[in-house]
């Protein structure tokens, strides 16, 4: 890739890219760890993961400031402009994913020691897919790969189907086991949060498509052309 | 000796050298003028200025010479300026730049350096003999015009070149024709320079002796020229005539003549310089 003649701008964009990658990495780990803490009833892991959210928030603030600076000083255009505005929006979605992981961790701490009626298989599968979607979005962003981003967007349907399935599962279990209604409600919350993680990852991928193609596909039906690159 | 002091001495020496290059020649000139003036002053009076030459020194006057010089200058300017400015305009504004144009420019510069007697002989052959103009003011003026033409052309071309290109561009952009641009933008801007050319031409012509003698100017004239076909004489010739006489008194006349010549030249130049300054002020430069 050709470098900008102005090396300071080049450096700033590299730093920005690095921040986004670091933030994404942190958030991916937080998703995995939060669900693991829940499943293994590991309160210590839950607390560590919550602490990690502070780092994520700090990077969000730094990134916002840096984007403002780049726009003010260099008035970027075309792909550079799309990248910087993408970065501003990406950190919002990533930060929200971090918050959702924190929610799951708090739930893990609350529920420690209580027997629970959990659709563990569905939760594990949703977690894997959701984390994969975040990772896929970030990969697509790094490589500028719109096809990969589109495949992430497609996976949102799978997560939605799993969510509905798991929801029904919990509902019917709650009807059978009245004694653990609170547990069931908590289960529904966690399922909802995982589904939200997948939604945010979908947002990330839509932003990546916009950055690469210069075409805004948010709030649109799926573009039949993009699958072919 | 430190480098600073060495440098200061070098600068000072250079300054003194340059100053001398001006002061010494001017000083010599001033000395000569003073010497002439001292001899001339007692001799210049109304009688001297309004009398005709005579074999008696005390009765001799310079009138025909003054009149002849003035007529000649005016006629020369009237011929040389329009032709010279016109030629310069054509070469600078209309002609295609190329090998031919450069060749012409070089040759005009060369012509400016040709000894004036050559022009005199040319004038004798072409104007006096072939065109049959005889030993007249017209023949003399035409010869002088040829002599000063290269100067006028060169100086005019230089001053045309100093008109900034962006002014012409602006005029082109407004949809003016080439002639409209030349007449209304270029010539007014270049006029001070053209006047300079006129000054130089007049200064050259007024001091010429040999070519006019070749063309047939009189050395002893007791009447005034009455037309452009009339015989004539000029100040330098009259001065030369007096200088070649053995009597002491005529040398005094010669000195007076020189003083009158210089005064005439200074007067003409001053008028032209005054005009030029007025115009330069107007064009905002």
């Amino acid at each position, binding site marked *: 890739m050709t470098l*900008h003649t102005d090396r300071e701008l080049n450096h700033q964009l590299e730093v920005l890219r690095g921040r986004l990658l670091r933030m994404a990495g942190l958030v991916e780990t937080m998703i995995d760890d939060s669900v693991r803490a829940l499943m293994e009833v590991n309160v210590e892991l839950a607390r560590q993961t919550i602490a990690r959210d502070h780092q994520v928030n700090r990077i969000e603030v730094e990134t916002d400031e840096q984007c403002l600076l780049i726009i003010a000083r260099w008035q970027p*255009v075309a792909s550079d402009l799309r990248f910087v505005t993408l970065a501003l929006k990406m950190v919002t979605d990533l930060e929200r994913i971090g918050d959702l992981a924190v929610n799951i961790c708090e739930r893990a701490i609350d529920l420690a020691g209580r027997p629970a009626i959990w659709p563990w298989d569905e939760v594990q599968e949703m977690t894997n897919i959701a984390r994969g979607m975040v990772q896929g979005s970030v990969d697509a962003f790094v490589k500028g790969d719109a096809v990969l981003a589109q495949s992430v967007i497609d996976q949102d349907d799978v997560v939605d189907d799993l969510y509905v399935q798991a929801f029904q599962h919990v509902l019917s279990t709650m009807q059978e086991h009245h004694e653990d209604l609170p547990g069931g409600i908590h289960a529904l919350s966690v399922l909802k949060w995982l589904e939200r993680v997948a939604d945010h990852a979908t947002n990330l991928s839509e932003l990546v498509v916009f950055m690469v193609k210069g075409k805004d596909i948010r709030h649109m039906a799926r573009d039949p052309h993009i699958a072919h690159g | 000796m430190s480098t600073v002091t060495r440098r200061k001495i070098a600068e000072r020496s250079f300054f003194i050298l340059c100053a001398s290059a001006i002061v010494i020649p001017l000083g010599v000139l001033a000395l000569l003028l003073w010497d002439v003036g001292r001899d001339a002053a007692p001799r210049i009076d109304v009688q001297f200025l309004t009398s005709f030459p005579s074999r008696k020194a005390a009765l001799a006057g310079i009138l025909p010479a003054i009149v002849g010089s003035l007529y000649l200058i005016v006629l020369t300017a009237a011929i040389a300026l329009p032709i010279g400015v016109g030629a310069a305009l054509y070469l600078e504004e209309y002609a295609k730049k190329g090998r031919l144009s450069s060749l012409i420019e070089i040759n005009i510069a060369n012509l400016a350096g040709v000894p004036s007697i050559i022009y005199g002989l040319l004038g004798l052959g072409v104007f006096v003999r072939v065109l049959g103009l005889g030993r007249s003011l017209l023949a003399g003026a035409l010869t002088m015009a040829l002599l000063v033409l290269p100067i006028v052309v060169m100086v005019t071309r230089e001053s045309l070149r100093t008109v900034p290109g962006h002014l012409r561009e602006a005029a082109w952009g407004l*949809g003016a024709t080439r002639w409209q641009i030349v007449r209304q933008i270029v010539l007014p801007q270049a006029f001070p320079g053209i006047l300079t050319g006129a000054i130089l031409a007049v200064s050259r012509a007024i001091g010429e002796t040999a070519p006019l003698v070749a063309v047939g100017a009189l050395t002893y004239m007791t009447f005034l020229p009455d037309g452009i076909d009339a015989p004539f004489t000029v100040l330098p010739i009259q001065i030369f005539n007096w200088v070649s006489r053995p009597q002491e008194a005529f040398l005094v006349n010669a000195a007076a003549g020189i003083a009158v010549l210089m005064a005439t030249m200074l007067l003409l130049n001053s008028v032209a310089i005054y005009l030029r300054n007025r115009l330069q002020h107007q064009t905002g430069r």
Partner: protein
Amino acid sequence: MTAALASQRLPSTKIAVSSVHAWFGSNHVLKDVSLNFPEKSVTAIIGPSGCGKSTLLRSLNRMHELVEGARISGNILLDGKDIYDPGVDPVLLRRRVGMVFQKPNPFPSMTIRENVLSGLKLTGRLEHQSSDDIVRRALRGAALWDEVKDRLHSPGISLSGGQQQRLCIARSLAVRPDVLLMDEPCSALDPIASAKIEDLIHTLSADYTIVIVTHNMQQAARVSNYTAFMLHGELVEFSKTDQLFTAPRDPRTEDYITGKFG
């Protein structure tokens, strides 16, 4: 290239450039350039030094041919008529297609008033009865009237750089052209004077077709409706300005405007 633009309601074409080549001697400076300049809009031409943008501009009012050794081929149609047709008088053409230059060049020997009228006076079309109206209209059109109305008889060169440039614009407007060509009009001006000229261009574009060559990309982005990017004598891309600066189609345009050259 024009297909993408055809889907929108386009203004009609004022100047149609078709397969134009231009040379300075043996130097091939414009290579098969074709584009349509929309009327009553501002079109910017951008590109690195030596890309041919000034040459293209000057071919639009036949000032290219004033240079020794300049040659041109192809068609340029103004309102459908070829301006290089042998029957067309370039002098008359330049009264319909005016030009403002990089260095403000009011005539130094003239007052402000005389400068405004100089275009008409030069070409022998000045009627004295209406000259006051002409001066007022032109200076108003150039957003200069309020600043100079009390000193119309001061020399043109007594104004500041930005004012002088607006005086030159007024001078061009007085001749009542259809099209105004501007060759880097703000290069010699400070940012505030530039901003005033850019604002003026916005106003003028309602009545005139404007083509502006600029090496300042931000200025092109601010001031134009359409932008053409040229490189090594070729037209690389011509789009609506919004499109070109957010998502250019050609990678060379992308590289140039993001500063990845060199």
